């Protein structure tokens, strides 16, 4: 028994020794020790593992946003055709772009759908087509409707057909806009002041094209997909950068400021829902307006110097998926005026600036030592918590809210207690007053009164007995034939007593 026990102990020791020797090493075989909490990895491999895992999550989410089948198609497309530059496409098959077959097909039926090449229309596309046609019919004369429709559908068709780099495609689309714009400007119809403006027609064309060519033009290659992923990763590694580091003038103590920032975040994240370029720009504009609200509510200036840092902060906090693709899509295919002028142009430009800043961010831009910046970015150290750091941290925000509620409650309670105390004092004082001014009531009822009352009581009893006797006497008298005169009072009391 004692031998087997010591054997076991020996086993145990061996086991432990073995664990120490081998199994505590990082499972990646890098030679460092691992830790169970880190899946038996060393800290370095654990970080790498986490990054890979998060990348997979991003990847899956982005893929859902882009729709899976299209994604596969695109991967194939980009790996097959990377060597096909614009020039050798032209050399290989010059007829590809002036294919007489497709041209004549389209010419034969200007209003027909070019979907005969195997592309089924999505519900989005067909409703965009209806809206486009309805708008044209409602606003311009038939020849213009036909011309615009024909040219736009030709362009749509070619966009799906051409297999060229995105920047070249962008140039083609912009040239198409320019060409159509010039043609319409020369049209007599638009020279009339009362007519709808050429720009409005162009906007409808852009709206239509951005829906029906979305799958082809938005994030067109796996390379751009990877660009989005690495931006997301980059932003994640910068999640320690707080509003404080960016020197914003946001006042996180105010609930209205936090609310505006949350709304700005929501708007920023919603950029992936619409396909239409103007609607995407609308998300950006609304996001920026909420940022201005936040600045106003912080009593900060609403100038460019204050605005840009907050926009950068929003990007870092929101880490919107496919942001890079959205920015590229807009800058490639938007009508120039949308991104060059007006409010949408200004805000889009600022978003591009913020994006650039995030990509280039280093210790210099945050005014800190390089080692410090790197330590934060690699997760070795955490920034000190402060009110500004956790502005958008909902838990802390709601805790702060609860605390302020509690404070208010405490105040109310104290007020109530004070009032009660005051009331108590008043009551005591009144009691005293009453006592002093109505002190004689202490002797009530007086001895004389009590004697008097007793006397009255006795008198009453006597009277009652007398009355009773009288009543009995009368009753007997009634039973006898001759009667004495009636006595009302005695008689009415009589039967009740019985």
């Amino acid at each position: 028994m004692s031998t087997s026990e010591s054997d076991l102990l020996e086993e145990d020791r061996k086991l432990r020794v073995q664990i120490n020797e081998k199994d505590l090493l990082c499972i990646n075989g890098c030679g460092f020790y691992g830790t169970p909490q880190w899946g038996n990895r060393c800290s370095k491999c654990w970080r790498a593992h986490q990054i890979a895992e998060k990348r997979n999550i991003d990847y899956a989410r982005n893929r859902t946003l882009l729709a899976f089948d299209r994604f596969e198609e695109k991967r194939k497309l980009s790996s097959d055709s990377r060597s096909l530059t614009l020039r050798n496409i032209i050399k290989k098959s010059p007829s590809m772009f002036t294919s007489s077959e497709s041209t004549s097909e389209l010419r034969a039926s200007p209003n027909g759908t070019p979907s005969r090449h195997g592309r089924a229309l999505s519900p989005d596309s067909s409703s965009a087509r209806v809206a486009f046609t309805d708008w044209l019919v409602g606003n311009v004369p038939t020849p213009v409707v036909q011309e615009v429709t024909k040219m736009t559908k030709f362009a749509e068709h070619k966009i799906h057909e051409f297999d060229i780099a995105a920047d070249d495609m962008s140039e083609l689309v912009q040239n198409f806009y320019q060409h159509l714009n010039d043609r319409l400007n020369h049209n007599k119809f638009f020279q009339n002041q009362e007519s709808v403006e050429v720009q409005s027609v162009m906007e409808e064309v852009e709206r239509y094209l951005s829906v029906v060519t979305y799958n082809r033009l938005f994030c067109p290659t796996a390379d751009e997909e990877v660009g989005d992923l690495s931006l997301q990763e980059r932003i994640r590694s910068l999640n320690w950068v707080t509003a404080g580091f960016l020197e914003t003038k946001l006042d996180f103590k105010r609930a209205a400021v936090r609310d505006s920032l949350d709304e700005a975040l929501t708007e920023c994240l919603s950029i992936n829902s619409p396909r239409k370029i103007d609607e995407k720009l609308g998300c950006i504009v609304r996001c920026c307006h909420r940022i201005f609200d936040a600045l106003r509510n912080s009593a900060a200036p609403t100038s460019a110097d204050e605005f840009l840092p907050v926009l950068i902060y929003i990007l870092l906090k929101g880490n919107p998926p496919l942001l890079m693709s959205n920015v590229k899509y807009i800058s490639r295919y938007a009508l120039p005026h949308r991104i060059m002028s007006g409010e949408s142009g200004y805000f889009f430009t600022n978003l591009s600036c913020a994006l650039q800043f995030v990509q280039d961010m280093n210790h210099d831009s945050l005014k800190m030592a390089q080692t410090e910046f790197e330590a934060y970015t690699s997760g070795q150290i955490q920034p000190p918590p402060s009110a500004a750091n956790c502005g958008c941290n909902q838990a802390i925000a709601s805790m702060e809210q609860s605390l302020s509620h509690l404070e208010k409650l405490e105040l109310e309670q104290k007020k109530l207690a004070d009032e009660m105390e005051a009331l108590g004092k008043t009551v005591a004082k009144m009691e005293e007053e009453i006592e002093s001014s109505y002190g004689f009531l202490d002797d009530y009822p007086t001895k004389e009164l009590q004697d008097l009352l007793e006397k009255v009581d006795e008198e009453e009893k006597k009277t009652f007995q007398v009355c009773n006797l009288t009543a009995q006497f009368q009753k007997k008298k009634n039973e006898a034939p001759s009667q004495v005169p009636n006595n009302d009072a005695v008689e009415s009391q009589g039967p009740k007593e019985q």
Partner: protein
Amino acid sequence: MERATTSASSEGEFRFKVVLLGEGAVGKSSLMLRYVEDKFSPRHVSTIQASFLSKRLDLGDNHVDLDIWDTAGQEKYHALGPIYYRGSHGALLIYDITDKRSFEKVKIWVRELQRALGETAVLIVVGNKLDLESERTVDRTEAIQYAKSVNAEYVETSAKENLGLADLFEKISSLMIDKWEKTREISGRTSQNSSSSNGSRRGIQLVDEQNDAAQRTGKCCK
């Protein structure tokens, strides 16, 4: 290459983008606010949105919609300049006449702008805070000479006292109109000579040329 944006939609109607560039605290935001809203705040604080403003100007027969873009002036955002001034028709390069360094900064901006935009944009060097004449450290004649040397105009202003602002924006507007009309002449001449007017790339384009040509010559294509 910059793509020319539509700055004139119809005859006499213009829309221009003007960026304000300059070191922090030279008065970019103040200048813009004073001009568009006629407001000045000595405390660097304003309650209205003051980073992007539009103003309509009537210059004789011409109507100009100015989009005025304020930019973040902090040094760390300097590198973002090209994104801001991309596609601008004009730029105001602002410095503070009491601050030599801000004038040197203007020179950096000018070099950058000319490299990026070439001759397509109108540049005006603006010496602001003219009300602080007694503290001036940048010599007026030196500044004028410098502006001339880089083909830019020179103007002095005070956002505080509202000096020279209306003139400044009128000046840049009429210079932009001139420039735009000149480039239209040139491009008009070249496009007459070239066979394709819309910069098509050797037959690859989204415009159906055969169809186009047929329509222009009046032939029916059934």
